[in-house]
């Protein structure tokens, strides 16, 4: 299909605002008489607050309020950024208080101070006296499930949040029938989003007595609901405003600071209060990526046919459920529409421990399961003596595949082409040959991994998106969406869709980038790689409606039938002749000012999208291993994606660059560490938590295989989270190729790599001739 604007690398709408510093983020807004809120955090991993004495803190000049759980409504609420479910059985776990009366991890918020300035607030924190009754704590999921383990929450025996799983076919029978049954254990570590902008909000009570919260969030409409629930307010009495945001990656698909910011304002008589976390606080008291342990058991024939797989997954969710078991379930759903297993048994367990809370993070459980599965497939290939790519190719699903559990149908499947393209781009065969029989202290290796992902959450959750378009007098349009631009470029893509439908240049589409729950159409927000796919459908629908209305007015003017006309570059043309009949501005002016028939052209629609589209891709990577120091460097990397039609190639590449760099951090360097005795975070800062810098990031290459997805607007599918999934196993497989050493846990941190290499006898080979 031929498009004018879709498929073009239109400059992102916010580019100039962001590079010139004109874009305003939550912390750039100031209110008169603004106060500062700070939080007192538990020094214990598990402890009951026995008594509190706030008198010394309250007496400090400049302090406006000091409070604890005792001063707040005792309402337990759920924080996960999911649409509300009318079915009580399908709701998120309500296990959180705004401030807790029982600390469940080191850093759990137990008291808050509101003061004239940050320094005074900090001084006041030191004047709060709290007496704790310290309880025994558990840090690993295994320990937490042991009999007699301390219980974190009353209503969860064994600390298990959920062990709900799924299966189809008879996996046990496949184990009996298959030529081989191969097992493997794989593990991932706790990592953090590390968005540049901190977690931040400010709140005040307006003249009508409503609570107004400005927040750096991905999900303003959900924040509104949860702030109201946490404070026991009618939902309409809360207003949430989301300005530009400096990254979220899922951490802000959760309600973390907003209820407390609102409570701080209420405690200070409704005065504006800012609660902005320090980086150290962001590490411990927002969300992390779930550390998972996976045991994979696969029935496979000698020719490589995968018959059945049994996946046992243990997910450590930390002290509160947050997104909890949804993440394990998401993991279990993504590999099925990639490999054609005759039977699957997926047994996940999500378990509470006394660690910081794990929640949503780009990929939502999928990077973990694909690390395990794609590593496992290479291990199987080695065992069977089959080429790892052949093994995968042999077992791929085909277009038309329907998942037996979700009933989602695969309508576009570009994996075979992704594999072909990736092999060619990295020169797979040639390099594989060159890497045979390496002996020295530096070795090269090639690895690859595949992934599958979804576009939104259907059929698990509601996929509702709202879009509103108003045509202005000059024929330009203003677009409002409830979906949030969080740096991924969605506003630009929505503008492109609108411009394409309406025959407008991109400059004639103005997008309101701020979401304000009082004004903005309803949409659940930025997550699940849903916006281009789901909100895109709503935007297209709104634009089509405007187009119809424009052509109706044009028909009035010209006497032609609407179907005989088209909008091209701000003009109405008679389609058959290509003849200009009037300008779009003429139509818009009629719509505004015709004495008889004036009715401004607008549309206000929403789309309830009850369909899903699977996205696919592959990573191909060459690594350079310094055997003596244990350092692994990426020499060349390609991420090849099937995300359907690419609406904006440059923005798509940007997603790949960011996602791959995030994945490489988790593959090689990043992990949050905790003192095994106390549960205290050891490296909750950007010096000790090894987020890669630009110098540590290799040149990242993105390539696309453009399939056409019938369900998406203009054939598009998801891309936002996709790039983060396959790099880690590909790197791991490349190290295996280079050294023959199979790693089963990420990150491949030099210390660990050194230990494994020594164990494998690689270091004994260090000899003088390499000086």
């Amino acid at each position, binding site marked *: 299909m031929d498009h004018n604007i879709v498929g073009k690398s239109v400059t992102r709408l916010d580019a100039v605002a962001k590079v010139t510093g004109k874009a305003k983020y939550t912390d750039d807004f100031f209110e008169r008489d603004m106060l500062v809120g700070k939080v007192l955090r538990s020094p214990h991993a598990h402890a009951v607050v026995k008594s509190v004495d706030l008198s010394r803190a309250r007496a400090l000049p400049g302090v406006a309020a000091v409070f604890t759980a005792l001063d707040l409504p005792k309402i337990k609420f759920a924080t996960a950024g999911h649409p509300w479910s009318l079915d009580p059985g399908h709701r998120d776990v309500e296990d959180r208080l705004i401030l807790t009366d029982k600390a469940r991890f080191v850093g759990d918020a137990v008291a808050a101070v509101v003061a004239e*300035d*940050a*320094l005074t607030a*900090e001084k006041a924190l030191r004047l709060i006296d709290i007496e704790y009754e310290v309880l025994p704590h558990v840090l690993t999921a295994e320990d937490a499930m042991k009999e007699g383990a301390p219980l974190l929450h009353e209503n969860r025996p064994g600390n298990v949040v959920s062990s709900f799983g799924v299966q189809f076919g008879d996996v046990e029978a496949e184990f009996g029938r298959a030529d081989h049954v191969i097992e493997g254990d794989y593990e991932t570590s706790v990592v953090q989003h590390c968005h540049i902008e901190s977690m931040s909000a400010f709140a005040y009570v307006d003249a009508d007595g409503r609570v107004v919260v400005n927040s750096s969030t991905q999900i303003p409409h959900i924040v509104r609901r949860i702030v109201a629930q946490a404070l026991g307010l009618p939902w309409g009495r809360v207003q949430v405003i989301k300005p530009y945001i400096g990254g979220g990656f899922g951490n802000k698909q959760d309600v973390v600071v907003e209820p407390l910011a609102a409570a701080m304002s209420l405690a200070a008589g409704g005065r504006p209060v800012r609660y902005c976390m320090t980086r150290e606080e962001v590490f411990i008291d927002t969300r992390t990526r779930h550390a998972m342990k996976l045991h994979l058991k696969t029935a496979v024939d000698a020719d490589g046919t995968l018959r059945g797989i049994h996946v046992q997954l243990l997910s450590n969710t930390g002290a509160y459920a947050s997104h909890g078991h949804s993440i394990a379930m998401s993991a279990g759903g993504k590999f099925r529409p990639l490999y054609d297993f005759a039977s699957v048994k997926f047994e996940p367990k999500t378990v509470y421990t006394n660690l910081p809370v794990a929640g949503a993070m780009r990929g939502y459980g999928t990077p973990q399961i694909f690390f395990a599965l794609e590593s496992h497939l290479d291990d199987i290939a080695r065992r069977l003596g089959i080429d790892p790519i052949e093994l995968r190719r042999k077992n791929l699903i085909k277009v038309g595949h329907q998942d037996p559990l979700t009933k989602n149908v695969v309508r576009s499947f570009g994996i075979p082409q992704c594999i072909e393209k990736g092999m060619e781009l990295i020169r797979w065969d040639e390099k594989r040959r060159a890497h045979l029989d390496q002996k020295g202290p530096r070795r090269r290796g090639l690895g690859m991994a595949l992934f599958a992902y979804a576009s939104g959450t259907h059929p698990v959750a509601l996929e509702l998106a709202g879009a509103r378009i108003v045509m202005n007098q000059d024929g330009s349009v203003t677009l409002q969406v409830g979906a949030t631009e969080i740096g991924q470029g969605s506003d630009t893509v929505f503008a492109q869709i609108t411009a394409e439908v309406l025959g407008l240049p991109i400059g004639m589409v103005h997008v309101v980038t701020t979401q304000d729950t009082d004004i903005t159409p309803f949409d659940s927000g930025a997550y699940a790689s849903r916006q281009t796919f789901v909100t895109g459908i709503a935007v297209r629908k709104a634009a089509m409606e405007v187009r119809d209305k424009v052509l109706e007015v044009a028909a009035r003017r010209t006497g032609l039938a609407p179907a005989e006309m088209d909008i091209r570059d701000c003009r109405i043309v008679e389609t058959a002749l290509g003849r200009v009949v009037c300008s779009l501005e003429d139509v818009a002016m009629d719509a505004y000012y015709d004495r008889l028939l004036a009715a401004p052209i607008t549309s206000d629609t929403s789309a309830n999208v009850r369909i899903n589209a699977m996205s696919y891709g592959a990573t191909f990577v060459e690594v350079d291993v310094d055997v*003596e*120091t*244990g350092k692994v460097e990426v020499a060349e990397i390609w991420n090849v994606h099937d995300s359907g039609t690419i609406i904006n190639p440059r923005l798509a590449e940007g997603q790949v660059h960011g996602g791959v760099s995030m994945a490489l951090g988790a593959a090689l*360097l990043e992990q949050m*560490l905790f003192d095994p005795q106390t549960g205290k975070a*050891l*490296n909750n800062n*950007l*010096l*000790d938590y*090894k987020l*890669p*810098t*630009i*110098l*540590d990031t290799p040149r990242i290459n993105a390539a696309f295989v453009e399939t056409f997805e019938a369900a998406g607007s203009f054939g598009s599918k998801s891309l936002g989270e996709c790039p983060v999934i396959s790099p880690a196993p590909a790197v791991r497989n490349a190290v295996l190729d280079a050294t023959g050493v199979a790693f089963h846990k990420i990150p491949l*941190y*030099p*210390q660990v790599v*050194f*230990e494994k290499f020594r164990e494998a006898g690689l*270091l004994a080979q*260090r000899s*003088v*001739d390499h*000086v």
Partner: protein
Amino acid sequence: MFDICELHEPGTLEEAKAILAENPGLKVIAGGTDVLIRLQHGSLAGAGLLSLKNLHALEEIVMLGDGTISVGAMAPFTTIFQSGLIRRHVPVLCEAAVSMGGPQVRNVATIGGNICNGAVSADSASTLFALDALLKLETSTDERIIPMGDFYAGPGKVNLRPGELLTAVLIPREGYEGMGGHYIKYAMRKAMDIATLGVAVVCKVREDRFVDLRIGLGVAAPVPIRCFEAEAYAKGKEVTPEVVQEIARLAVKPAKARTSWRASKDYREHLIEVLAQRAVAEAVKRGGGCCAD
């Protein structure tokens, strides 16, 4: 917002020394890249500060009459890295300087602050150790010049007397002349990181023999150290892969590496050997020798 009670910003060194003599409790602040972090974390809460930022004379890098290179304590690492004098005569110090943090940090972080902070990971320290550098310390009434080795007292502890300021780092002619050098900063990241191990080597090779070799190690013991046994062994030896390997093996001896969550003792010792070998081999090349492959 910082929790400080007073701030002095003298315009001359004399003035600064006088203020410090009167208020020895003041915390000296140079570039502030260590001090401000401690203030932020509350460990210097309520401190009074004496800022050296206006003492521009202390930023100078010059060669003295006897060939000693004097680096002013207030010289930021960007200045050091870009100094023609340092590039010509002590390129290994450039390597150390540019390994610091990132561009913004190097623009403000000073060499004096790096040393006086007393961190065993200080990137300039191991190199200056290997260069046999001296420190010039002044009070309002006194002046002394001491070897680097006498200055470090323990982790984060230096022998700075009350009222004393570091004014210059002196690199004597014998320290650098005719020497090839190499600094390996081994860290988890290529920028914005603290060294897991720092290995600085300078050496002089004539007719394929080690005339002189000095090795400084950072993060191998509670303070930066020299590897005297390895150095003594090298003297006069022919440069061969076996000799270099033996030097590297001996370099591990003075180390007092320990296990922490950052790295194990084992791994650290292994790294000392591997990296000392690499650093010596590279320094030999740069010092006019060749180490047969």
